[in-house]
């Protein structure tokens, strides 16, 4: 038996499971998206590309795409910047580091629905902690269409920053101290040490964190679903919330699948772009 053949045999179970659990459902969703399927009304007929044509002019869909984009860009950028800053801070700190790490993990370990419920009360206009800290004002965080999305982004940043921090912190720990000592001897300290040593070494892992967080944020659902239900006025309705409402609440299986396919396409494009950047970096490194 050749190695090649053995490799296939060993891979077969994994491929079968992946095929059964990922590829098959994905193709099925693609197939459904080309039909009108509303089981409640026993509607099942061919639609071709009509759902996609409707999506192209569907203002609710484009609003959701915009909300998803803004949410992803802002939350991921903040999470990465804050995560790195926290990791650098942790490295410099020796007393209470374990405590700080445990606290960080707590935020990350909470189920996102619990986080969302917690923020519901933090943001409560009349009795919430956030407004209390803002000097007892009654800022309408979740009920004002201009503030709701930033409020959700803040909640997501609170929840996901620790993930980035941990990844970066782990990388920072592996940078040998003598690199910095040597740099100091050469007269590079402070900012220069950061841009010349820390940043190039942390950057690859930060890219991986960025990839994970972006893919997560593009599929953001729990926080908006619990806190605002996509409101007010649709200001926080992401693509996945729209897909969920269509698929599971109003049972338009065909149309909902079309939204799912488009979300999948968006996520794929972003993922491939990231992987391309990461690969290129590996080659140049």
């Amino acid at each position, binding site marked *: *038996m050749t190695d090649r*053949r053995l490799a*296939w*045999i060993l891979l*077969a*179970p994994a*491929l*079968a*499971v992946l*095929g*059964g659990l990922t590829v098959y459902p994905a193709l099925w969703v693609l197939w459904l998206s080309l039909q*009108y399927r*509303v*089981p*409640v*009304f*026993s*509607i099942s*007929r061919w639609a071709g590309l009509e759902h996609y044509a409707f999506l192209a002019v569907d203002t*609710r869909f484009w609003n959701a795409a915009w909300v998803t984009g803004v949410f992803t860009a802002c939350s991921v950028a903040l999470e990465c910047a804050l995560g790195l800053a926290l990791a650098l801070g942790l490295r410099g700190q020796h007393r209470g580091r374990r405590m700080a790490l445990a606290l960080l993990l707590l935020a990350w370990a909470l189920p996102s629905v619990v986080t969302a419920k917690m923020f*519901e009360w933090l943001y*409560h*206009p*009349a*009795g919430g902690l956030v407004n209390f800290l803002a000097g007892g004002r*009654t800022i*309408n*965080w*979740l*009920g*004002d*269409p201009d503030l*709701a999305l930033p409020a959700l982004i803040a909640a997501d940043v609170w929840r996901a920053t620790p993930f980035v921090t941990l990844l970066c912190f782990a990388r920072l720990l592996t940078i040998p101290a003598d690199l910095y000592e040597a740099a100091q001897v050469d007269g590079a300290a402070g900012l220069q040490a950061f841009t010349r040593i820390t940043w190039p070494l942390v950057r690859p892992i930060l890219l991986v964190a960025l990839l994970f967080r972006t893919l997560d944020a593009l599929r953001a659902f729990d926080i908006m679903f619990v806190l*605002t*239900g*996509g*409101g*007010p*006025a*649709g200001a926080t*309705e992401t693509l996945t919330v729209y897909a969920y*409402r269509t698929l*599971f*609440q*109003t*049972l*338009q299986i065909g*149309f909902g699948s079309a939204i799912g396919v488009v979300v999948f396409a968006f996520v794929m494009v972003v993922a491939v772009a990231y992987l391309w950047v990461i690969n290129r970096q590996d080659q140049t490194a």
Partner: protein
Amino acid sequence: MARRPARAVLLVPLLLLMLIVGGCGERAGSGAPVTLVFKHAKILGPADPLPDLLQRFEARHPGVRVQSEALTWSSDEQHQFYVINLEGGSPPFDVMMLDVIWVPEFARAGWILDLTPFVPAAERDAHFPAAIEPAVQSGRLWALPWIMNVGLLYYRRDLLAKYGFTPPETYEALAAQVRRIRSGEGDPRLDGYLWQGKQYEGGMVNVLEALWANGARLLDDVGRPFPDRERARESLAFLRGLIESGVSPAWVTAADEELTRRPFGDGRAIFLRNWPYALDLFELPDSRVRGKVGVAPLPRLRHGPVGAASTGGAHLAVSARTRHQALAVDLARFLTSEAAQRAMTEGAALRPSRPSLYQDAALVARDPSLPALLGLMEKGHPRPITPYYLMLSTTLQPEFSAVLVGRKSPDGAIRDGAAQVEHLLRAITP
């Protein structure tokens, strides 16, 4: 040797399939005792009466066991659970608890059993009309009412009495009372009228109540949206006006039942629109508003009646695919019977769907609010009874929310909402 990978590819799904099928193999064979599975939301309240009721049912039907399985807490997830299981073939339950707004949808889909042949007319008529109407589609009965709800106006009895007011019959009077009491009290932390304006089903309920309070409907008799546009416009403008004039705080646009119930319970609001469950919480021994809360019918606008509140609640239905039809129907009828509803009212502080129980001396002695609730329940309206209610509601919620936060004019929201609903209807009525 060359064929082995292909065989492995086949084997793995087969093994998975066997695991899945094996898990379903517990179904009772002939002669073995029958197990009925009852799916329901968790019953909250001081003492869950359900285990005892199910035991009574089992005692009456020797050889039958009822397995009671609680659903997840959120209503959206319950709906999703039912849809996946009912659409997917043979559902693993026989009797199910449904939110009243799902009954027409499930009936239309053919997922639930037609109960008409099993339920005598007298048994039907023993429930509130507003509870039975949503369970009837094309003249057939599809579910039995179990728990009843209705929107109420809660008011601070002490504050109204202090200024010589009686509960307002019109929203104009409500606004005037709010202004008078707030200026008299001089407490910036005392809000006026709290209600639910978040973009969700509860927000939809509040908008519907504003429409009805002005004599407007959401759908006409053949299901076209907004038959009385001018009145609907006034209703939406009125809700936005509550916020603009400060009668209601701006944050009601993000508020659900609990977010409004708490400030009122802390004594920080004069009026509140909520369901009957809040009453029990306001009367708890450590409540700050204990003995100070009254309930009244929802006020009216210019063209509508007083007390045009939305009803809600839960029904029991039988799966169309149950293998124990007669027994499952018996269980649903038993649990919705007067005796069972009495036990539910005593133990779980839920409101029954049978008017007779609201004047039952023993029950009234335990819960003096029941007679007052009777009149309010009788005035209540069911939400539009149509299989596409959820579609309608999720489509219109962002439009109504946009009006409440001032993003859209009432006219604009009605126009855009009507256009979207008509688009939806075209798709499902080929």
